[in-house]
């Protein structure tokens, strides 16, 4: 579904991605784990078209997405919930969700998806008319995931949805990610919380300073002694 081949990216003179390759097949949850600064966010920004790779190929559903503008990429069904949530703070919860559905032309489907988001995260319905900036961190994360769901993604990119959240809320978010996947959404999950991510992922990649150093199924990586030492604190 998504194919990243030999992709390099830099900020000015600093090389951040040094020819990484990864792929995501329809129906999978794939996780990209790695330490802070490894280049995970940069990878997602390149996929979403906000940062242009210096070289390499990016194809989604067989189409070359490197030259595409971000809003075209979203229209293909490749949707990202960014790191740090990035909700629109002075817009209400409902308006934030509406922005998620910005590219859609099927009002009935959008309506169904509001219900779907509200049933997965009832707290969002309670806070519907509140500015998003007044929500707690956990609620904002739920909103960010819900907002991305409103775009009806075929492939959902999630950048550190567990960042800075209490364990109970993290568990809830991961539960929702699995539910979405079972309902047909393919997921590429970037995480520093490697244990949780590998547990729900079909496959995973380990990114170290801009290079993919390991890959395997979730189970394989969880059992790998190098992964355990470096990312699972064992």
């Amino acid at each position, binding site marked *: 579904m998504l194919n990243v081949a030999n992709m390099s990216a830099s900020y000015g003179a600093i090389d951040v991605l040094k020819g990484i390759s990864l792929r995501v097949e329809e129906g999978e949850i794939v996780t990209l784990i790695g330490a802070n600064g490894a280049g995970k966010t940069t990878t997602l920004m390149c996929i*979403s*078209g*906000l940062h242009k790779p210096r070289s390499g190929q990016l194809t989604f559903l067989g189409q070359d997405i490197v030259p595409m*503008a*971000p*809003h075209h990429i*979203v*229209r293909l069904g490749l*949707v*990202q919930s*960014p790191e*740090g949530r*990035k*909700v*629109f*703070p*002075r*817009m209400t919860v409902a*308006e934030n969700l*509406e*922005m*998620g559905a*910005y*590219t859609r032309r099927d009002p009935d489907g959008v309506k169904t998806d509001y219900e779907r988001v509200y049933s997965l995260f009832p707290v969002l319905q309670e806070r519907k008319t509140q500015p998003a*900036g*007044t*929500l*707690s*961190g956990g609620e*904002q994360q739920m909103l960010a995931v819900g*907002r991305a769901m409103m*775009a009806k993604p075929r492939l959902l990119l999630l950048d550190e949805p567990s960042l800075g959240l209490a364990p109970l809320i993290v568990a809830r978010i991961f539960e929702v990610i699995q539910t979405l996947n079972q309902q047909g959404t393919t997921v590429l999950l970037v995480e520093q919380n490697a244990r949780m991510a590998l547990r729900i992922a079909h496959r995973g990649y380990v990114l170290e300073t801009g290079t993919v150093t390991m890959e395997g199924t979730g189970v394989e990586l969880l059992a790998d002694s190098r992964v355990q030492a470096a990312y699972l604190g064992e």
Partner: protein
Amino acid sequence: MLDTILQQLIIGLTNGMVFALVALGYTMVYGILEFINFAHGDVFMLTSFLALTLVGLFDLQGASGASLAGGLCLVILTCALFGAGLNYVIDRLVYKPLRKAPKLAPLVSAIGVSFILQNLGLFWGGMPLKVFGGGNQAAAPKAFPDILPAHNLLGAGSGLTLMPKDVLVIGASLVVMAALYGVVRFSKLGKAMRATAQDPAAARLMGIDVDQVIGATFLVGGGLAGFAAVIYSLYINTIHYQMGYQNGLYAFTAAVVGGIGNIPGAVLGGLLLGLVRAYSDQFIGAQWQPAVLFGILILILIFRPSGLLGSTAREKV
């Protein structure tokens, strides 16, 4: 005394509406690009030259009834479209290529565009049209004819004067502002504008074509300036190729005092500036206007550096 206070209220509100309309264009663009479009006041100025040309073309001086009303509507519409189009073209030709450049580059370019537009205004004022005094003395202020009936709506004997043009300026401005509010609050475009202003990267990730939203913002801001140019000209009855400079700076100040980037703030700032100016002229003296006016505005900024409606409360991260 009461009559004096009320009279200055009318004067302050009418002037304030013009500042507010121009301030909206500064604030909306700033809200999205964090960029001061210094040419904005000159879009306002140049459109007033178009307004005067059209008044001559449609022969509105001395017209009355339906032909006056129809002609005036046509002038307003054409000028709003012209202001919108001019502002849009300036953005596409000059600012857009500099979007990723260091901030001083678009700023200096905007100052450059401001001078170029003044030059165009000077040229326009020199055209051999009757309404421009036949084209002699291009640089001289141009009289804008009083095309609205000049009688006191409150009766000739009243100590208070309310002219049709006062009602037009205040009424039409309120309608335009209400329409703007509706668009920004409820329309898809308005929501996209707010989202882009609050977080452009996140807006892109939602599939919003940010470049298109920026273009729409310049269109709306320019349209407001074009509309303001007509009502200003009708009200003040003089236009001049350099009038964009002072009015632009006043409107920009109003936008900052109201809270730059904040739409209701621009209206509040504009009205406040108009009112303070009117009362200061009346009770302190017109020769002290700039000192009093800007003294008060600086005081406001000392106590509220982000402006009256600017966000001071930090948002939860």
